[in-house]
């Protein structure tokens, strides 16, 4: 009897303390949707079927693939950003980011975390060790890197911070407030946004990536805030204010537009499809050749997408 109790105790301490998520097989391609309202992540196959769903215990607002098998989770109100091994579903590391995380960007196994409470961007290795940090403008959020610099959009500021890969301050470019959505096309930095004050933004700003000079604008009403490159090289942008997806040529011409989703915030390229996350209607839209080929109901409030396409 005593032995049974001991066994139960060991099971309780050892087995139950570490919660594991359902595992995702290593060689499976997926598009994952983080549903911020429902607090879940849905992993969806290239057949547009849900492979697995994770119920999240913390209020995570974003995620990023660190490596093909490592997924980083973060949230504005969550102090720890865990790194989960997808093949086992277990947490392998945790980054002590503190409250205020708005965005994570991974470049060559280095994790860049923007913190809007401290107004900093910090770099960590995949073990969770902090490498560098730099202060930014007010409310840093969206980030992108061309390999030489890391560009940080300060959401509640009128400047974009240009940092070196080691997080040294390089430059500051003037941008509209409430800007969001970055994309690098040749030597141009494309920048979307919600627009300042009551007037919604309708265009994508084309900025010279070297000088920060505004080269031009691409009209994509209303509120273009996310961009992704399709397999054919075209750029797709999503405007959440009008729930419209625009297909742009590499030179920035609008080729097609399609009304899709309800208040979509994210678009990603997955195989031959573009996948769109409709925040208000809780659906993912699979788009090919300017047509919605499939709709898929996911958890409440799909806000961000992550795509893993494993090379076979």
């Amino acid at each position, binding site marked *: 009897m005593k032995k049974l109790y001991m066994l139960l105790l060991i099971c309780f301490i050892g087995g139950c303390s570490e919660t594991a998520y359902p595992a995702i097989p290593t060689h499976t391609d997926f598009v994952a949707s983080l549903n911020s309202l429902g607090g879940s992540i849905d992993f969806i196959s290239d057949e547009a079927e849900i492979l697995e769903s994770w119920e999240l215990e913390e209020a995570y*607002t974003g995620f990023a693939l660190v490596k093909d098998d490592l997924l980083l989770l973060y949230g504005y109100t969550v102090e720890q950003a865990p790194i989960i091994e997808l093949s086992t579903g277990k947490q392998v590391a945790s980054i002590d980011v503190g409250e205020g995380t708005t965005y994570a960007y991974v470049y060559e196994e280095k994790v860049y975390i923007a913190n809007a409470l401290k107004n900093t961007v910090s770099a960590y290795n995949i073990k969770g060790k902090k490498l560098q940090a730099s202060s930014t403008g007010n409310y840093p959020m969206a980030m992108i890197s061309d390999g030489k610099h890391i560009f940080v959009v300060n959401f509640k500021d009128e400047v974009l911070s240009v940092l070196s890969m080691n997080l040294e301050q390089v430059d500051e470019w003037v941008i509209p407030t*409430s800007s969001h959505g970055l994309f690098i096309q040749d030597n141009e930095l494309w920048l979307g946004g*919600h627009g300042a004050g*009551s007037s*919604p933004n309708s265009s994508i700003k084309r900025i010279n990536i070297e000088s920060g000079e505004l080269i031009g604008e691409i009209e994509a009403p209303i509120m273009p805030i996310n961009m992704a490159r399709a397999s054919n090289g075209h750029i797709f942008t999503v405007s959440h*204010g009008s729930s419209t997806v625009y297909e742009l040529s590499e030179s920035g011409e609008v080729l097609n537009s399609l009304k899709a989703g*309800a208040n979509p915030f994210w678009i990603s390229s997955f195989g031959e499809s573009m996948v769109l996350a409709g925040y208000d209607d809780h659906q993912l839209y699979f788009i090919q050749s300017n047509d919605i080929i499939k709709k898929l109901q996911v958890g409440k409030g799909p806000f961000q997408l992550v795509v893993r396409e494993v090379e076979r």
Partner: protein
Amino acid sequence: MKKLSVKIWMLLLLFIAITIVFLVIFTNFLYEELYVEDTETSMIEIAVNLQDMYNGGPVTNEFIKRTEDFNRFSDMEVFAVRNPKELSACLPFDIDYESLIGPEERVQLIAGETVIKRGYEKRFNREVVSVIYPLVDENRLEGIIYVYVPLTKMTEMASKDVIFLLATVSLLLLLMAWISLKTVQKVLVPLDKLKVAANEMAVGNYETRVNIKSSDEIGELAKTFNQMATSIQQEDEKKRDFLSIVSHELRTPISYIKGYGEAFEQGLVTEEKKKEIYTLIVQEANRMQKLTNDLLTLARSEHHQEVHLTPLVLSEVVREVLQLVKSLADKKHIKFTVTIDEETIIKADEQMTKQILINILENAIHYSSDSSTIIIGNELSKKETTIHIKDEGCGIAPEHLAHITERFYRVNKARSRLDGGTGLGLSIASQLIELQKGKLDFKSEIKKGTVAYITLPIWEDSFL
């Protein structure tokens, strides 16, 4: 101690204040509940009409214009909004912008539900009632129809002109206070008069009367007070009269006795006169004795003497009494005819009943002429019997008949002493009958005689 007028006045003031407060609250309530509810209904109607005009897709400029046109015909503010920023479309982002609708409202609207709000709206910087209808196309919140009406609250109205309102209310209160004070005073002045009159009465001024003409309760009270004062005054006068009569009645025999005594003392009485004078002295002494006895009986009966009610055979009592008055009757050769029912048993005090019958019979004998007849009989009713004693005397005039039971009342003032009565006999009889819950009545005809009716309760067990 506060005066009654102050108390009533303060109570009135309290009521007025409570009424004003209640009215303010009630008006506010009515305003909120009825007016606002009614407004909401009309707002919903407008919103529904406008919503019907929406055919899906993006909200067009034309639709917005048509919505705004509505403002021209309506006293409500109506507009359509399609700006996603106003619709909280950037919700997951921490946007530095106060949108027109909040996150929860957005969820409700996307679900196709109507949002009805009542309260302060920062955008309009005032209290409003608003009705928001969604314009939804395939789960997409393309826009909203926003209808609102400013809630011009009582307080808001007041805040515009607080001083004016305060002054008005204060003036109203002062006016009410003054009117109520005057009213209370007017109502209570008669009470003050009554108090003064009661004080006057207390010090012996029985002629005091209150002059209040009103016909309300206080007027009634004043009337009753005046009646009471009259009664007290009459009683007082009676008391004085009684005392003067008593002293007069006593003085006469005393003066006789004194006069004859002095005559004896001075040897003025001749031997042959002595016997006559002794008889006179004894007669006067008897008279005094009778008078004092009568007075004692009267005093006792007035002080609610104890009554021992027992079953009495009426015929027996009458026979015994006739024995007692026989000598008096014989002097005048008066005969009695008795037709008393032998079975009648009365419920009465024996001594008192005998005294009553003696007094009435003595009276009858006194006023009967010689050799006449006195008839005594009785009649039975369900619960009582009436004994009637009929004489053939001189009779009593109607104006005197009502007064003959009053003390010392004499029909013929001149016959005061000669008839030998004290003037208290009928008064005593009347009081003793009253003590036994009976009645005494007289009927009389001048020159023909008088009938006395004595009604007394019968012993009801006698019928069992």
